[in-house]
């Protein structure tokens, strides 16, 4: 390997590392707020990529149907919950449920019917993709996790795997077995000495940095961000001061879906995305999140870069064993965490 290859690999590694960092941050966020280990995170990556691709190729974005389906299912579930609680049986409750759950999916569906099928500017494509994929996060929370908010981490983890399993099948149904690749955001290249830096990579890294900064400001400066942090620190305490577990759960899933969709938009110009590609991408975010103990944002972000670089160099030296190497990294990480963390006892009722 000479220096220029090493530099190209480093650039690749940092680019995918930035993607994993976004996913890892979302995973830490969801886990610390809801105790859900959000395995289906990767599915939103695929949904985002497929929606972009459909808009660019002038096809109907099938993710809209998926959003509508989730919305209707969640609405029905909410109506059933209202019917079971006598004190909530009133028109206002139904109206609120409609606005919270079904309105956005209906608007997205309406928009997709009315708007022309192709020739959208890139920015509008991104906005529409986010508008379709991001609301899926809270809907998935409503359908799968909200009824189990008090369950043990283990049960929530098994639920996550069930959701992942179902969403992968739905992804296959909605998008088919063919992969997609989207148009690059930019063709710019920068020559720095012998090193050629692609504008595309820079876009990804810049987007990741901007998003991380935005999250930092959101959690540090806004009331709703602080409320989420409070829930992460102490769920019972947060409830006592009036922060709802359900709202916090919805908000964290919204952020997770947004990060997933952004990753899908960012990564689709680099690699072909299949309906099930998101899972592996998401799991690499997990390896990074575990490096951060599912608790530390900066360590998770640093871990993501490590995973990205490891993967990039591994694909050069032993491309067949790339995945083996990345996922085996978890063993030394677990050993390190096991030695570093003090012994603690779990007090969980199963």
């Amino acid at each position: 390997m000479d220096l220029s290859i090493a530099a190209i690999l480093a650039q690749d590694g940092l680019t995918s590392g930035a993607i994993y960092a976004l996913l890892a941050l979302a995973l830490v966020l969801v886990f610390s707020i809801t105790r859900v280990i959000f395995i289906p995170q990767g599915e939103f990556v695929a949904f985002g990529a497929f929606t972009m691709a459909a808009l660019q190729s002038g096809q109907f974005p099938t993710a809209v149907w998926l959003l509508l389906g989730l919305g209707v299912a969640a609405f029905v579930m909410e109506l059933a919950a209202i019917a079971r609680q006598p004190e909530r049986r009133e028109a206002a409750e139904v109206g609120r449920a409609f606005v919270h759950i079904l309105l956005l999916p209906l608007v997205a569906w309406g928009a997709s019917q009315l708007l022309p099928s192709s020739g959208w500017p890139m920015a509008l494509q991104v906005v529409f993709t986010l508008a379709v994929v991001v609301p899926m996060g809270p809907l998935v929370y409503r359908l799968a996790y909200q009824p189990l908010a008090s369950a043990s981490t283990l049960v929530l983890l098994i639920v996550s795997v069930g959701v992942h399993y179902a969403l992968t099948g739905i992804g296959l149904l909605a998008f088919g077995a063919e992969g997609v690749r989207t148009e690059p955001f930019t063709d710019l290249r920068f020559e720095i000495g012998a090193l050629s830096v692609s504008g595309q990579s820079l876009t990804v890294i810049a987007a990741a940095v901007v998003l991380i900064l935005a999250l930092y400001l959101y959690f540090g400066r806004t009331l709703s961000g602080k409320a989420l942090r409070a829930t992460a620190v102490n769920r019972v305490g947060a409830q006592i001061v009036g922060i709802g577990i359900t709202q916090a759960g919805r908000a964290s899933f919204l952020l997770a879906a947004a990060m997933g969709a952004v990753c899908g938009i960012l990564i689709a110009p680099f690699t072909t995305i299949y309906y099930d590609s998101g899972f592996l991408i998401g799991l690499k975010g997990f390896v990074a999140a575990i490096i951060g103990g599912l608790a530390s944002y900066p360590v998770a972000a640093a871990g993501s870069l490590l995973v990205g670089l490891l993967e990039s160099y591994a694909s050069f030296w032993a491309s067949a064993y790339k995945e083996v190497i990345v996922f085996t990294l978890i063993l030394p990480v677990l050993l390190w965490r096991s030695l570093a963390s003090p012994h603690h006892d779990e007090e969980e009722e199963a």
Partner: protein
Amino acid sequence: MNRLFLLFIACLALLPVLPTPEFWITQANYIGLFSIVAIGLVLLTGVGGMTSFGQAAFVGLGAYATSYLSTALGVSPWLGLLAGVAVAMAVAFVLGALTMRLSGHYLPLGTIAWGLSFFFLFGNMEMLGKFDGISGIPPLELFGHPLRAGEDIFYLIWTVVVLAVVATQNLLNSRPGRAIRALKGGVVMAEAMGARTAWLKLVCFVFAAVLASLSGWLYAHMQRSVNPTPFGLNAGIEYLFMAVIGGAGHVWGAIFGAGLVTVLKDQLQSILPHLLGEAGNFETIVLGVLLVVLLQYARNGLWPYVAELMPRRWRRQTQLQLPADAAPLPVRPRPTTGEALLEVDGARKEFGGLVAVNDMRFEVKAGEIVGLIGPNGAGKSTMFNLITGVLEVTRGEVRYRGEPIQNRPSREIVSRGIARTFQHVKLLGQMSVLENVALGTHLRGEAGVLRSMLRLNREEEGRLLAEAQRQLERVGLAHLMHEPAGSLALGQQRILEIARALCCDPALLLLDEPAAGLRYKEKQALAELLAKLRSEGMSVLIVEHDMDFVMNLCDRLVVMEFGTLIAQGVPSVVQQDPAVLEAYLGGL
């Protein structure tokens, strides 16, 4: 052995004899193979409260080990079996040891990563035939007869299933099994009874891996070829589905779940593509949704509902047989009355800047009941946790019979003769009163996992249960012996905890707020019991809130406020102490 089990074996024996279509024999073989894996998951997930998504990789290890050895090296499949089991055990041991000290979700996450790694490893290794796998694997031979056809291997597979059921049931109804069943609600209680919980968790994980590799060995010789696909992460997830859908708490649930998922998947695979007009693995949608719905509405799976449908006498659990003539367990020598038993000497606990226990000093002499009292937040529970080894002291000493015991693990403290109860009762509600109490005898037996599975522990087991019964008689709960512990009233549950502690053969009992939440009559009964224990030579340290309760019962009181000792002495004197009055009544 109950009737259900006999009926099950009869059905199995008849299946190939009756004119069963070939298809269903094949399905039954698969169900058997999956059941073996799912039974391991029942022990791991339903009983032990851990989980794994990587069992398919262990199946793969078993399958690939024998495939490689019997094709490339031409050795006997029986050697392949040994090799597969050995490799699976080694891998499970390493993976388990790495994650056991971490919180519960690291093991499943580790198994996801390891399940993926092994799929790609199997698929890329030249010697294992890459993604094409290995073919031309010889069939198994039993008594010179090759097991080629489906019916031939059917009996072997289901014999293994039945053996796995028996071994698992034997294990669960034994000394280590009771400790394993105690793992699920947190490890503090099991450790306080002397169980090495990290080791037991590891044993469960290794046992589940061994069952999985056994299944893989059978699979390889039934299929006569292997490739990586059935050992990937999705397969690992489906094994967990089987255990959870069937009911992860029951061995029978594993078999039911394996059957249901196998048949359902097969049916969906033929129906769904027609309905949807497309080819693909759409059954994952149904399975995933089914799993989520079940966890929302029926956390214990479908088996309990199936069991409900059966005649009551079929599913009646045979009551534990108590031997009438079991030799009593050896008892440790009693300290002489008046000997200093427990000495707390300058014990201090700081949480960051907060001093929760401030250089406390007091002692408990043999044969007396000492009450540790103080207002809310005085640091009583922290003091209690320092003595029982749940927390470590910042500095200072806690001595038991002259030897320092601070910063020792709970299980070592109980082995020296200090047994405890819990402020929030820690019982296994589903388990019988007798078995709950028998948990306390953990350190007085030594039968391990293997001896228990093979039922070579009968003699010792009888002695342990007889001891549990004796302690139940001592506290007056013997008539409720066979009831589930969860059905008892709170007062009875607290007494049950005392019986369990007595099973540890203690010289000193530590009781954490035993009267909290009890009604007047229950308090009276508790006080009588403790007085009776004292008259039999037992020493007791009670942390308590209820002044009336301790005033009448205790020989001496130790009063704490803000982590500091403010008074000690006989109750009538302490009652008049100005500092105590100030602390309790806010100054007069």
